[in-house]
């Protein structure tokens, strides 16, 4: 169980990164920001190493239960945010991205870290691509949500100075660009899921609650993209759509067991 020990270290690194990013919010110093980014990057790389170690320990891809899903979600959040920093420099969102990654790990800590035996139904080459693509999408959508919330909070302050306008534009652009990255991933997730279902059960679509809600998530973001590109909507309205989209995505990920018909589903996991 080396991977669990490494994850404890990752948790510490993320907490440190969060503290440093928090300090950056107060100090606005370039050095502090770089330190935060460095810690988060180190955490993400260590996290990646932990997943690879677990892969080796298990002898199969470690994406098979709720614990491993949270580990994957947290890793993707860190990786996607580091990628964003390199491209757009959101900087001030760092604390919140760290908190999201920490949240994923913290939830995983409440679950059983033991490596479960691989069920025949999950023994497929589609498992890795399906799960990784989905959690990369969820992570990007999570950061998009954070950016849009930051946008809403900033616009609420009322008076908009020029510097504020720059910030608003950055938040809007990050909120949007993450969705642009996430949407093709969501689509790939749906498609790989359908192809896998065809191979495993002989039907590419079965209106299982998980499938249905994955489609609903996709529809919400398709709606977002149409509004943006055809109607040219911007600002607060898009923030609300993105918020609804993220809520639906998280419901698809975690909420389905609360559906009254959840016992009818073939792939709702976790308690």
């Amino acid at each position, binding site marked *: 169980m080396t991977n669990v020990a490494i994850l404890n270290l990752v948790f510490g690194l993320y907490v440190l990164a969060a503290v440093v990013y928090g300090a950056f919010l107060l100090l606005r110093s370039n050095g502090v920001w770089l330190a935060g980014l460095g810690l988060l990057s180190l955490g993400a790389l260590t996290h990646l190493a932990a997943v690879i170690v677990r892969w080796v320990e298990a002898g199969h891809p470690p994406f098979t239960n709720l614990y491993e899903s949270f580990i994957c979600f947290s890793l993707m959040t860190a990786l996607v945010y580091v990628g964003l920093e390199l491209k757009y420099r959101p900087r001030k969102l760092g604390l919140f991205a760290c908190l999201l990654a920490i949240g994923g790990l913290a939830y995983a800590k409440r679950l059983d870290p*033991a490596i479960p035996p691989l069920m*025949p*139904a999950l023994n497929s080459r589609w498992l890795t691509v399906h799960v990784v693509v989905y959690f990369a999408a969820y992570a990007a959508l999570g950061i998009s949500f954070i950016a849009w919330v930051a946008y809403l909070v900033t616009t609420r302050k009322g008076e908009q100075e020029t510097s504020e306008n720059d910030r608003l534009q950055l938040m809007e652009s990050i909120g949007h660009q993450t969705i642009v990255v996430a949407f093709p991933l969501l*689509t790939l997730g749906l498609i790989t899921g359908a192809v896998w279902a065809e191979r495993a*059960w002989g039907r590419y679509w079965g209106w299982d609650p998980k499938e249905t809600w994955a489609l609903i998530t996709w529809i919400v973001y398709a709606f977002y993209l149409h509004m943006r590109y055809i109607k040219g909507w911007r600002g607060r309205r898009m923030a609300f759509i993105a918020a609804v989209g993220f809520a639906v995505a998280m419901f698809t990920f975690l909420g389905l067991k609360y559906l009254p018909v959840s016992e009818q589903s073939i792939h709702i996991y976790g308690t």
Partner: protein
Amino acid sequence: MANPLRYAILLVFFVALVMADRKAKRRILSSLKLTVVLLVLLALCSAAGTMVYQGIGREQSLEKYGPLWDGVFRVLGMYDVYHAPWFALLLTVLAANTACCLLRGVSLRLKRLGWMLTHVSILVILAGVIVSSVGGISGQMRLAEGETSSTVSSRGGGTFDLPFSITLDDFEVERENEPHETLVVEERRGRTRSVPVIMGQEMKLPGITAAVKKKYNHAQLTHLVVNRSESDANPAVRVGLSQEGDNIERWLFAESDQSPVEQFGMRIEFSSYESREMLEAARKTILAHGVEPTVPESLVISDGEREWTVPAVVGAEGQLSGLETTVKILRYVPDFVILDTETREVGTRSDKPNNPAVLVEVEGESSWVFAKFPDFTMSHGKPSKYEMRYVRSDSSSENGATLSVMHSVQDDNLEIVYTDAGIARSWDSVSIGQSREIEGKGVSVAVLEYIGDAGVVLELAPSSDHGDPPGVQLDVRGPDGTIRSVGILANARPILVSDDAALSYRFDFPVTQYTSRVSLADGEEGGDLQREIRVNAPLKHKGYVFYQLSYDQNAEQWTGLGVKRDPGIPVVYAGFVGHAAGLIMLFYVNPALKRRRTAA
């Protein structure tokens, strides 16, 4: 199941809509407003299908939702949302909307290619679904080993025939060679986790530590009386009796009226007193008036189907064979009374068994069970799903012979008192191991062992029966340092090892694959084809695909195969590829091109 007419009507409707939009001046059908309305409706309707049970029968739905809502749901088609006519109509209008937009915006410019590809692909996917539905067939077949068949039970009822026959040569459940064994720890507050079973390694549980002491491949539970502490909280004696070469040993418990044993025509019981004076007073009463008749008693537990009988002895705890929960007898009171209505503290009004009751713990919840009020139990937590009865038969002979073993804690004195309906009376002080002859009965009696705080533990013993499950024996160390032995059989319900933690022992050989080995025979061509069907690795033959879906879970003798022929698959997959390619162009290629242009 597929209704070609229905799809024909929908297709005609689709074409009519598209044609209408070509002629119309106002762009309603190709408007974004319509797209928005349709997407919202599609999302809501899809969601609705996950809120209401799908495909359930009239009786079930009536029971679940009541007559009013059941009526509404049935009229609206809520029990089969995704196959309802209005759902198909919704998708048709959405397809028409997409097609109209495409036709209005058709362009051969590279910039528009991604956009066109994504939207055309959606139409292609929907077309593929129709091809699947109209031109495909699917069903299931169950094959026993050695059985040959070419008949498939269709999903919508009825059957269809394959153009070849399939024989199940062998069905195999492949398992890992090494067992997967874990101790599952469930904490009352907190997570459930699995711990590998390593001999001797200490595990920290809330308030206690536990370590695996022994492991058995096959084990049975046996009763064991153990001393739980140095105190005299629950005194017990082991008594040996013999008559004409007939020897028996019995445990007798002071704190329970259960322990009297009927043997050799007399009742044998044990009582313990704090001081010598109390013992002597009790002895005088017995010799003067005989013994208050006490009788064997038991706790009967029922899950509605089966019954288990447990001796109602304070300190008894453990698993019962077939009953997958721990049962603990925590306390006995002869004359139940609630001493304090606020704290609900329980005590006894007298020493007479006027209202005898035992406090029983089942599945971590304790409740009082009353001998005289079988329909009434008093629970602390949630009521148990088990029905419990505390049975004392008060029919025993009043004037029978009674052998009383008496003990005083104060000076550790043991006495044997014998009465026989007032005819014969004798008493004698004895020491451990010392044998006494009872005059006129031809019975000799000896107290072999005394335990101050007896607990009945069900301990594991190795078994030679290979049908018996594996088990582990653990040492559980409490916060005060006392060590208790706990035996756990594999794959039984969790056993409480402290107030806040329960343990269970999982042992199995995890399944790695289900494989159906089949022979396919085409009749004319002769020569069987040997093939395998595995989970996630279907078998394709002559346009038909076979899936490993289910199997005989008891004897692993038959397999359940999904069978289908689906000409829509290539169409749907082409749509998938096109859509993905279109998205990549739209969101990755186009922006890159744009950047290059602005840079230039």
